[in-house]
């Protein structure tokens, strides 16, 4: 893990209150798996903000973050300009183990701001010969992003809660319409969504990316624990996760 000032190469709005940020720096070389995250320091805020790595290019040392304005910190982040730099700590945690997935077919299920880390995940899977079907759920048409990018990788089912784009409803409403030829599913989104997904697909192996408020982001403060089914009884989302096997942790 590194702590580095990374230069902003791109910074633009891609959907309602949703911004794409391309950063350049050495720590990109340390990214092991898609689904890892970085911990971003924003001037004037005491705690860092965890943001998933949406895409990365080790050769050019660039990575893409996609974030939604949820509060004062992410709002302040929107004001940073191309050419300025950001204090970034990372890459953190365990991502989706794409290199261990050797299926014919995998299912991606992303909800809202859980979609970004699944993009590089889908890319890596496709690169290693795994066909990818994606279900992407958003609140509304204006919140949707990365659709074309996902379509370039395989079949895409879009759901929106208000029906303004794709199927009306939630990601689980698209499940019946997806061929069951996948062996693994990989999902990221709000915990309620992850629970619904895990309940709907009890018979397949799945990987879930979890969220919790963080202090250190490196495993030292025990802010981000989640109950687990093993003997130890807990996992730290920032370093044991954020990606866990479905069934490994308690989705309460």
């Amino acid at each position, binding site marked *: *893990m590194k*702590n580095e000032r990374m230069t902003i190469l791109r910074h633009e709005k891609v959907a309602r209150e949703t911004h794409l940020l391309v950063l350049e720096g050495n720590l990109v070389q340390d990214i092991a798996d898609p689904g890892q995250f970085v911990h971003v*320091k924003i001037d004037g*805020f*005491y*705690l*860092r903000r965890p943001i998933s790595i949406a895409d990365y290019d080790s050769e050019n040392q660039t990575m893409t973050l996609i974030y939604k304005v949820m509060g004062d*910190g992410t709002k302040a982040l929107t004001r940073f300009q191309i050419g300025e730099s950001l204090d970034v*700590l990372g890459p953190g945690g365990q991502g989706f183990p794409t290199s261990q997935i050797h299926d014919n077919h995998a299912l991606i299920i992303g909800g809202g701001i859980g979609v970004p880390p699944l993009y590089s995940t889908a890319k890596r899977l496709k690169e290693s010969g795994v066909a990818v079907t994606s279900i992407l759920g958003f609140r509304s048409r204006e919140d949707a992003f990365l659709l074309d990018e996902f379509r370039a990788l395989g079949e895409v089912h879009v759901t929106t809660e208000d029906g303004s784009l794709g199927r009306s409803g939630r990601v689980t409403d698209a499940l019946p319409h997806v061929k069951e030829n996948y062996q693994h599913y990989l999902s990221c989104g709000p915990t309620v969504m992850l629970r619904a997904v895990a309940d709907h697909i009890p018979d397949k192996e799945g990987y879930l990316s979890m969220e*919790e*408020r*963080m*202090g*250190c*982001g*490196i*495993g*030292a*403060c*025990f*802010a*981000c*624990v*989640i*109950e687990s089914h093993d003997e130890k*009884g*807990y996992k730290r989302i920032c*370093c044991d996760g954020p990606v866990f096997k479905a069934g490994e942790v308690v989705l309460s």
Partner: protein
Amino acid sequence: MNLSVNLPGLNLKNPVMPASGCFAFGKEFAQFYDLSTLGAVIMKAATKERRFGNGTPRVAETASGMLNAIGLQNPGVESIISDEIPFLKNHHLPIIANVAGSTVEEYVEVAEKISPHVNAIELNISCPNVKEGGVQFGTDPSLAKEVTRHVVQVSDVPVYVKLSPNVTDIVEMALAAEDAGASGLSMINTLTGMRIDPKTRKPVIANGTGGLSGAAIKPISIRMIHQVYQAVTIPIIGMGGIESAEDVLEYLLAGASAVAIGSANFKNPFICKEIIEEMPNALARYGFSSIKQAIGGAHDEKVETPVLRP
């Protein structure tokens, strides 16, 4: 520049150490720098049995600070001795064990078990984040005295009592600890606070209240150390919102003999190392030629000839 300070049980090559609970048992920070750079290390709280801590969220951001209610999650004293201390021992630096409990018996048992493996004990009678976490010991001088006396009796190493700032009279608490045989004080633990999220209409932290740390509390800690320094003769390890070498100097001038750095490790994982490296410059800039010269320097009676303590 001489950065060394000798305190009971602790020969510190420099006065900077990570604060309890903000550095776990060192492993995570060892990826960033060589831990032997540190003056010492204070481990995460140890209780008799392992504890799972509070529900999440456990942290919340505040203006220039944060709230936490981890709830003393730890693997239990025996696991700490067998699985964590050996790693730290490799780095050849003084180790301080933070001892917590719900009863005098628990405190005593933990201290008895862990003291042979460490250089000093930090007696945590001030954790505000667990119902049975010892905070009553930290706000009642007679209970503080009792638990300190018992722990001092069984401990092989000097005992530093960690005081809670959530009291009317900090001097009274400090004197109680000194009377009971403490070799030093550790000041301060967090101030009890709360944030409410207008969206959920509930406290942000699952536990309701949490402990406030960070730059926001520094003026309160400096005030308390300044008060206590005049009243006791045992040394003080100061903490609360330290983020720079100048902050360390402010603590030394107030009367601390060494300092601990907590939440700032989360902002900048290199903070302890960077401050240690900056200390010689900071001392020189303000006309000091050693750490010892600065200790207590803000006390009128001591401006001419700074009393070296201990």
